């Protein structure tokens, strides 16, 4: 009797599991007659306005579901591991520091966006074979707490050199480049500035200057950094050139001036891309989504939701952005091929110098 019960449970279990399997199968295999839902894979910072895709859905009949991953590194690695059998249809958020990894793994189906001629030419030039399409740009820079320096009557640092100066001892907190994409961008900034021979020496000086390395950007910005939450004690942090306008937009109570500012000579240019994932069941629909992501409608939404610069020439920047954000004329950059060749080695070197 009991045994029969056990058998029954096991059978029921198998049936449940089988049903579960077929349920997910029907979801992805539904034919073109059914309305299509595209899965847009993105990182945690991809936060467009609520309902931004409604227009796209109305025009094309295609719905969009966003699935977010924790950080850009994991997003891209996971895409590389599932190349050809992707977890979604379109990926948003592979940047120039990680692009090589995705291209090596053949993650994307090349597509030249219908909007290509309107997009930032420099960004477009990074992908001559059109594997992905640039969608936004931004700069990773040192941010400082303006009040902290004003109160003490001290001039804030103005360069990467300054950060290693004992005058700024115990003031900087950086996210770990092994686990954070702005952290990686900042590491690349130092390599762009000091070259293969000099960057480790500079980091050694930073280490002797008591720089604090933490796990992620949010750990740094909302933790030890004093400019954001007011709880931390360090006035310097690695963040974005657009963090000051974000502070103003989200200020509660409202304020006119940003509590933080950017050290312009420390900025590293980040270009983010989106692309059609190879192996998607809906390549045509996915391409239309890429077109929408590079359209003026979507590009106009970027500055105030994600605090990045649009790449579409006709997109407009809101006032608060123009006033408080800073756009370095000559940001630090590194050739993608050089990043591809050096990245893992640089990370190991960083690890042995800084995480002892």
């Amino acid at each position: 009797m009991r045994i029969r019960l056990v058998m029954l449970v096991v059978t029921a279990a198998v049936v449940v599991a089988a049903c579960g399997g077929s349920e997910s199968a029907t979801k992805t295999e539904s034919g073109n007659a059914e309305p299509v839902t595209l899965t847009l894979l993105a990182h945690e910072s991809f936060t467009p306005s609520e309902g931004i895709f409604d227009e796209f859905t109305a025009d094309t009949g295609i719905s969009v579901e966003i699935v977010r991953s924790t950080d850009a590194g994991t997003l891209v690695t996971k895409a590389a591991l599932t190349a050809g059998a992707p977890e979604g249809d379109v990926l948003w958020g592979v940047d120039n520091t990680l692009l090589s990894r995705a291209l090596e793994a053949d993650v994307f189906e090349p597509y030249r966006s219908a909007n290509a001629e309107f997009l930032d030419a420099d960004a477009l030039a990074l992908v001559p074979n059109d594997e992905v399409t640039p969608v936004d740009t931004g700069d990773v820079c040192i941010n400082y707490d303006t009040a902290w320096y004003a109160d003490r009557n001290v001039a804030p640092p103005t360069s990467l050199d300054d950060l290693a100066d004992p005058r700024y001892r115990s003031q900087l907190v950086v996210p770990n480049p092994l686990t954070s994409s702005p952290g990686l961008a900042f590491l690349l900034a130092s390599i762009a500035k000091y070259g293969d021979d000099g960057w480790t020496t500079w980091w050694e000086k930073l280490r002797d200057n008591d720089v604090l390395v933490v796990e992620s950007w949010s750990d740094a910005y909302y933790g030890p950094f004093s400019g954001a939450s007011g709880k931390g004690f360090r006035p310097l942090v690695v963040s974005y050139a657009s963090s000051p306008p974000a502070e103003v937009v989200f200020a509660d109570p409202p304020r006119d001036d940003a509590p933080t500012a950017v050290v312009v000579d420390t900025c590293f240019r980040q270009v983010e891309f989106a692309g059609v994932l190879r192996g998607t069941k809906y390549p045509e629909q996915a391409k239309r989504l890429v077109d929408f992501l590079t359209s003026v409608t979507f590009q106009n939404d970027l500055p105030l939701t994600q605090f990045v610069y649009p790449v579409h020439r006709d997109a407009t920047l809101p006032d608060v952005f123009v006033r408080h954000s800073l756009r370095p004329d000559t940001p630090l950059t590194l050739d993608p091929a050089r990043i591809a060749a050096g990245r893992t080695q640089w990370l190991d070197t960083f690890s042995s110098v800084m995480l002892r």
Partner: protein
Amino acid sequence: MTAVRHRTTSNYPQGWSALAGLPGAAWLALFVGVPVVALVVRVVDTDSLRVLRTSVPWRIGWFTLWQALLSAVTALAVALPVTWVLARHDFRMRRTVRAIVVSGFLLPSVVVGTAFVGMLPASLQRTWIAVVVAHAWFNVAVVVRVVGARWERIDTGLTDAAALLGAAPLRRLRTVTLPLLAPALAAASALVFLFCFTSYGIVRLLGGPGRVTIESDIALRALQIGDVGAAAVLAVAQAVFLIVVATLSTTIGPRIVRGVALPRIAARRIGIGAARRPRIAKMIVAVTLVVVCAPLVTLVVGSLRVGSAWSLGGWRSVFGGETLRGSVDVIAAVSTSARVAVVALVIALVLGACTAFAAVHGGHRGRIGDSLVLVPLALSPVTVGLGIIVAFGPNAGNLRASWWIVPIAHSLVALPLVVRLLVPVLRAVPAGLRDAAATLGASPWRTLRSIDLALTRRALAGAGGLVVAVSVGEFGASSLLTRRGAETIPVAIARLMARTGDVLRTQAFVMSTLLAVLCIAAMILVERGDAAR
């Protein structure tokens, strides 16, 4: 014992019984053997070995080693007093206290990590201290179980005699109790050491930058940096180290720590009131209970607070179905975990039962599967996951990108435990019963059903509970293999904990509380199955 074992082989045709071991062996060969070969090929094939020329793996290896040693010592220090009280004293609620003290080990590492994030002050978080404290807490149960079992068998007459001869308590401890306990102490330390050496979930949540074990560095390289070659090197190196340590601790260990065989005696405990210093014993129990329960209480309290205010918001957001920015779909994670656990349960139970049957009735050929089953134990879960990633890529049907790979990995982790649990139970089935059934005209199938299956069904239920507990709590392999949108509960918790935001944190506590309850329920099944032995 040997006689019984010999007799058991007579009832079933040996050749056919040995065949029952085939599916399990094939499963292991495919999903463990092939991946291991693929890992080794990856190591010798590429410039992956470059990583060994940097100082990084050595530094990580050194940290892994010393934190594991320190964790083992700390666990012993915290657990021995209460082990003594539980082994030597009788009091109301003794069984309950023991059950609570050993319950910690049943919890998934992610749950424990989350609890300690909630409990430790900010200044201690993401430090080696946090890692060691959580490891020690986790392993109190191991010490109480392993050392306690031997302590109960030490005849109190020996210490009484020493006392009569004028030995002070400390001297009795040093000259009588400790030498007799030594083998258990060594075994417990070795277990805790190995466990902490391959720790991943705890380190992911509590370790800071650079404070990583080899295990979590493998996952970091494979998952975030995308340096699979170096990850393979570290995985193979760690596996070799683990096998060497495990072999040493079972071969040379007993020769160094020579233990006297203790007779099986009924544990003699004195009433706690009659103890020479009842207050000390009571205090030890009270302090231990507080230490053991604090993280669990933190978990529940944390699930009821958003920011610094009391709120049911966390629970409501979990069950209300509202989706928060940056949140994970809790209901989806629970249903994924349930589905994965069911598939893993069926695979592990069927293969495990067959393998155990072959081991008991299939002669020496039947025992091949039984020994193969130990291989996944020697590999860490992250290594199992990494091996699958390397072996089953685009050239092998891209199985690594399939949903099924997660329950398959869980079945590999659970299979050795299932077989370990079932073999002694099957072996203990009296051959006489089968003889009687055969005499009464029952076919081997009928005998199998109404004798062996009937007598082991509680053990089977226990094994089932174990598989479910392993599956719903498994984090190492899952973190490498789960697909986006199909996260299991532990993976979802780890993702929530990696984010900022009061509500997200509360949701992580809610899910951890749920998972803790689920695991404890599953393990109660196991305990009951275990009692059937």
